[in-house]
């Protein structure tokens, strides 16, 4: 082993505390990068495989009823590769052993065969053959939620007729990787299910022989999706088309895309923060090592070592820290990735979602970490080779000090000499002090980032269910009913207050941007489903124009007062130009709202509703439920309490688990930063501290010089760190915003207090560790070294 290599190992050993601390921060960055990237890759690959092997369609169109003989014309259209017609209809089901009615979506299969597009992946059983007219295949999560297996039976109400169904198989479809009910924000496998049956049976039940109400298409290579959509919409217009749409507007695909976007953020923004912090720490550490070893560097140069080999020597140190952190992060990442992928498998149903360790990901993560580290240590390395050997071999002259502004104040007379040393050191080494403050502030910021989301998640649930959804029950009807149905609901036992709504699917278009969503028509001042502004104050609906969530307005590039095109995808399908009257704040979903009668007018209908919200007195709602279920128009009943529990469980499952891990790592990193800082401060003052000890100052008095500096720096860093943390949080919140959720960025005093206390605790602990070093300080040795 060459002497330089030996020196390298010994340096690493003597700085092991700091090396380890920095390695932990690097490991955190690498781990998150690997987790994000590995999950992203696993999900993307599984998605791609499933789409390819099961012929996921590229275009979809729903119509009221179109004749089958249109198919050859569609097939002959420019850009169309394959087309398949089918039937689909919402159903209400009853599952044995489950006392609540279940909503469902029933789709047709070519009798006894796989469809050409959106083929099913069978987990068990088989497709229903021709001899089993009422055989069905269930989507796997729904079957799992009810413990249904092949051979089991359930009841469905199709077009008002009750029908016994037999499960012949359980499967998955590329169309329902993410299975979510209409208007739901979260999957609910018990109360909503997808199932398939033979086309001839379903056609008979719907009276749709020789007709279809849904199309799936694939496109030829190079076909322009918009052109095909336009042609298709034109052709289908007489048949009540709701407008064809591509994969981007297909629910499951859309959610999957959003999720992948989030993973991308996870794999970039967070690691960037952690690797940036570690690069900063390394730069401080390397700066100090190079400074203290200037005589060694001089000797090496005097003996004829080239600048290159000296730079390489110190660069190796940096790289070894990176490799250590990288390996640790890789191991942790691989460990957690399994769990994360399993979590994805719960929400996104693929035939096979596998996590595969990708060595190239680990290498890539480490390369990025190394780049960041080298960028951070470049200055120190440059300094190492800049000095002339002769100059470096002379001991450095005492540094120049002058009384700072602090000491010209009245404070000067009361502070002790050790305190004066602290103040002078900080004011003299301003750059160093600023860097230390910045370093500690970074760790305060990490703690804010790791902890603010807990309060935010709570706030989100609170806003959603205390301020917005104040109803107890949510009814949706099978179709529009006259407003007077509300009176009937009001008369039901236990019902205290009722509010109706009318919702309709629309495509919102502003220039090239468009979004498929639904408009809800509400009472002018809705009480059970409120609209709130950014101050959380209730907002009344304007008499003219619509309101939408801030997130959607941003997405469409709209501000209050702008007009936009609204393509209604129901009934007569009018295309309207409307004004955006105002923007509201909602943390969940992408809502668009209009005064209900205004919506009724636009749809060319009388005062109608297709859903209602109820406030009931909580005691006994059995009677109420029985009555509600007897109403043929009631398609679904939702408990808000259950929705709330579901949302909370989902957030606990996904976000908070992730945030818990992040907080743990943020805390570890925070400690690493503070400890590093203290260790360096101690090492740089060893001689001074030893002198003070020799002069008869007690350990406690000398300890103050160390502890006081750490504490002072920490106190100065805390407000800066709060600011940084708010910045980090805004950055991450913005990046993690999806159609589904926007975590409200709120900062409770507890978050700031927590971050401050955390870092003070770290400072205290580091200080105590330094005091231990102080006890072992070799007074004689420190006096000899010059």
């Amino acid at each position, binding site marked *: 082993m060459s002497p330089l290599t030996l020196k390298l190992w010994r340096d690493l050993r003597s700085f092991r505390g700091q090396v380890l601390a920095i390695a932990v921060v690097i490991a955190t960055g690498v781990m998150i990068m690997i987790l994000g990237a590995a999950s992203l890759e696993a999900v993307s690959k599984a998605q791609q495989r499933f789409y390819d092997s099961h012929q996921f369609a590229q275009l979809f169109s729903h119509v009221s009823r179109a004749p089958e003989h249109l198919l050859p014309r569609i097939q002959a259209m420019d850009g169309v590769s394959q087309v398949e017609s089918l039937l689909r209809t919402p159903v209400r089901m009853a599952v044995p052993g489950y006392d609540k009615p279940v909503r469902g979506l029933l789709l047709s299969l070519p009798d006894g065969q796989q469809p050409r597009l959106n083929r099913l992946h069978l987990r068990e059983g088989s497709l229903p053959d021709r001899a089993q007219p009422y055989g069905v295949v269930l989507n796997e999560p729904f079957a799992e939620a009810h413990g249904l297996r092949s051979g089991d039976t359930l009841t469905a109400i199709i077009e008002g007729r009750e029908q016994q169904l037999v499960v012949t198989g359980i499967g998955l479809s590329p169309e329902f990787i993410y299975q979510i009910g209409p208007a739901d924000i979260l999957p609910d496998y018990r109360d909503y299910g997808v199932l398939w049956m033979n086309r001839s049976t379903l056609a008979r039940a719907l009276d749709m022989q020789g007709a279809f109400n849904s199309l799936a298409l694939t496109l030829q290579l190079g076909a322009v999706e918009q052109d095909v959509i336009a042609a298709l919409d034109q052709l289908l217009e007489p048949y009540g088309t709701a407008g064809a749409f591509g994969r981007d507007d297909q629910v499951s695909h859309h959610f999957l895309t959003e999720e992948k976007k989030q993973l991308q953020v996870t794999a970039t923004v967070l690691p960037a923060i952690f690797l940036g912090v570690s690069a900063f720490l390394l730069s401080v550490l390397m700066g100090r090592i190079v400074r203290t070893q200037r005589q060694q560097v001089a000797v090496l140069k005097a003996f004829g070592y080239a600048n290159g080999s000296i730079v390489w020597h110190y660069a190796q140190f940096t790289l070894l820290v990176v490799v250590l952190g990288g390996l640790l992060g890789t191991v942790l990442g691989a460990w957690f990735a399994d769990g994360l992928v399993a979590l994805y498998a719960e929400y996104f149903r693929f035939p096979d979602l596998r996590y595969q360790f990708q060595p190239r990901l680990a290498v890539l993560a480490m390369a990025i970490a190394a780049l960041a580290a080298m960028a951070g240590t470049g200055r120190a390395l440059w300094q190492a080779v800049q000095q002339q050997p002769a100059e470096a071999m002379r*001991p450095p*002259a*005492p*540094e*120049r*000090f*002058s*009384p700072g502004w602090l000491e010209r104040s009245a404070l000067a007379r009361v502070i*002790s*000499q*050790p305190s*004066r*040393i602290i103040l*002078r*050191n900080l004011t*003299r080494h301003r750059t160093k002090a600023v860097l230390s403050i910045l370093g500690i502030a970074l760790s305060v910021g990490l703690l804010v980032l790791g902890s603010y989301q807990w309060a935010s998640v709570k706030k989100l649930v609170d806003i959603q269910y205390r301020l917005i959804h104040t109803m107890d029950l949510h009814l949706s009807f099978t179709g529009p009913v006259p407003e007077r149905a509300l009176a009937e609901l009001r008369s039901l036992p236990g019902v205290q207050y009722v509010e109706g709504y009318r919702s309709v699917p629309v495509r919102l278009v502003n220039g090239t941007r468009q979004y498929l969503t639904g408009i809800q028509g509400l009472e002018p001042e809705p009480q059970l489903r409120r609209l709130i502004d950014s101050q959380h104050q209730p907002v009344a609906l304007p008499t003219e124009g619509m309101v939408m969530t801030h997130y959607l307005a941003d997405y469409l590039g709209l501000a209050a007062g702008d007009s936009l095109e609204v393509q209604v995808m129901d009934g007569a399908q009018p295309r309207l130009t409307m004004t955006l009257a105002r923007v509201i704040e909602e943390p969940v979903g992408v809502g668009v709202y209009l005064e209900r009668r205004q919506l009724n007018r636009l749809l060319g209908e009388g005062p109608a509703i297709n859903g209602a919200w109820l406030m009931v007195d909580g005691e006994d709602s059995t009677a109420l439920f029985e009555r509600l279920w007897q109403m043929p128009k009631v398609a679904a009943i939702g408990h808000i309490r259950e929705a709330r529990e579901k949302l909370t469980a989902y957030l606990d499952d996904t976000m908070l688990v992730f945030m818990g891990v992040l907080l743990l790592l943020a805390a570890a990193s925070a400690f690493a930063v503070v400890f590093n800082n203290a260790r360096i401060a101690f090492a740089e003052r060893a*001689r*001074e501290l030893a*002198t*003070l*000890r*020799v*002069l*008869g*100052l*007690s*350990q406690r*008095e000398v300890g103050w010089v160390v502890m006081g500096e750490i504490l002072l720096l920490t106190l100065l860093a805390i407000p800066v760190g709060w600011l940084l943390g708010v910045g980090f949080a805004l950055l991450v919140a913005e990046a993690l915003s999806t159609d589904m959720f926007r975590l409200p960025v709120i900062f409770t005093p507890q978050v700031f207090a927590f971050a401050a206390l955390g870092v003070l605790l770290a400072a205290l602990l580091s200080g105590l560790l330094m005091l231990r070093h102080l*006890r072992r300080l070799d*007074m*004689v040795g420190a*006096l000899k070294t*010059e």
Partner: protein
Amino acid sequence: MAVQPEAIFVSRNLTKQYTMGEVTIHALRGVDLELYAGELVVLLGASGSGKSTLLNILGGLDAATGGDVRYRDLQLTGASDRVLTRFRRDHVGFVFQFYNLIPSLTARENIAVVTDIAPDPMTPEEALALVGLENRMDHFPAQLSGGEQQRVAIARAIAKRPAVLLCDEPTGALDSRTGIKVLEVIRHINETLGTTTAVITHNEVIGQMAHRVIRLSDGRVSEVHENSQRLSPAELHW
């Protein structure tokens, strides 16, 4: 010297070993010695003779391996850190080859570090006047020459009116002219304050200003020589 002055340091069969890697170094191999109140002693020896180790043990910076050393009634061997800190704080002034001033404090404040904690100190101003630096009180170490820095270090050492002044190669980093000025200050302190003073050096010439010269070699006292006639520092040449 008077009939029989009080011996304030007494060491008997003092030994010190330490290991460096796998080598055991016998720095002191049984030192018997007395230092008397008010005398100025020069400890002479080549490097490795054990003189610094001896001084460090006398000053309470290092612990002996064996034997016995007492300061007046205080047993230094085996004393706790707390006792040794107290001992240094109240009784001992140190002067080092490399001055060891705190660079962030002015001359006056460097002395205040000690006077703040001593029971009966002189003021920093008085101490600086004693070493002839009353005009440089608010200068930082970086603004002082090597000789001036060493005089500040001496002022710092004597400001608490210590009973003992221990100087480890006080002129080692200085040219001879500046060195002589520093020695004049040391002699002046010894004479005006009566501080028992031990000066370590490898420079034979300096021995001529001492009351007694104790020569160490190979971890033992090899010779004790009493100067019948002392020279003043100004008369020394090297």
